[in-house]
């Protein structure tokens, strides 16, 4: 069991290692797929939503780091 957990953790660390980045990027791709295939939004709207979610992921994880840094010091 430990080996399986270690394997999962190593895979997670290899591909992302950051829960915020991983979840927002997965949401960006899943929502992009949904908006294109199901809702059928225009390419412009899809582009904006897709890129905004990617940037949001980066901004959120950086703000978490900044706040935790501020608490420590």
């Amino acid at each position, binding site marked *: 069991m430990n080996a399986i957990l270690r394997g999962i953790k*190593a895979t997670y660390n290899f*591909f992302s290692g950051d829960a915020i980045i991983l979840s927002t990027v997965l949401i*960006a791709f899943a929502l992009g797929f949904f908006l294109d295939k199901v809702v059928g939004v225009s*390419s412009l709207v899809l*582009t904006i939503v897709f890129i905004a979610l990617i940037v949001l*992921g*980066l901004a959120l994880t*950086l703000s978490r780091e*900044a706040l935790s840094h501020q608490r420590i010091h």
Partner: protein
Amino acid sequence: MTGQLWAVLIAAFLASTVEFVEAFTIVLVVGVTINWRSAWVGTAAAAAVLAVLVAIFGTAIVLFIPLQALRFVIGLLLVLFGLKWLKKAILRYAGLKAIHDEEAIYEENLAAMKMRGEQIPTRTDPFGVATSFKSVLLEGLEVAFIVITFGVQADTGGQSKGIFIAALGAAAACLLVVALGAFIRAPLQRVPENTLKFVVGIMLTSFGTFWGGESLGILWWHEDLSLPLLILFYLAVTGILIQVLKPYASPRTPQMVTGGDQIQKPLEKEVLG
């Protein structure tokens, strides 16, 4: 050679050049920031897979390989890898990443070894191999599609060597891009480590956004011309983020500018550390 075959040669050359530039950019940044061994192992593995696929499917590869699905998966992974690198580079630029940590000590040791003229051990790095493998595989498949599409069109237009001529155009493009890459490799080695990692993060995120977006149905403005715009966009965004984060850095945390800015270090320290 007829005018139609010349047109196929030039079209295949130009279209393939764009794809090779994209693939080689990733291989180059992996080689410079991680190590060349990993970059070449990934490239060779992708070339082998491509050769097997072409040998098995021949021109029918266009029908059997789901390029959209590949773009989706590779785009997703590149965005994940790119954001991870960007995050660390931004934290260092903003002064939020402490200088006196294990990573920095390790990097200082490597820098000292380098200054003494000792050989820094390099080994195959999974992250570097995977990154160059994915890029070369995707772009290589796109080149195969270009060669087959242009070649078959010429053949159905009454020519008999369409695919061969298109392949010649693609091979010439490959040689040109690799030759140009060899010229800029040396100057790139002198760029500071954190700057390179920042650039890699921007590149991987931009390419991932581009390919991922294509797979989702985004019609990029002038197709591949959107890539430089995406790069500029991410540069601007990260520039703003660095400025916003700087006030959060404590005065006791100096910026990470020494040691690690001069040397390479293994990937798992960067990825798993």
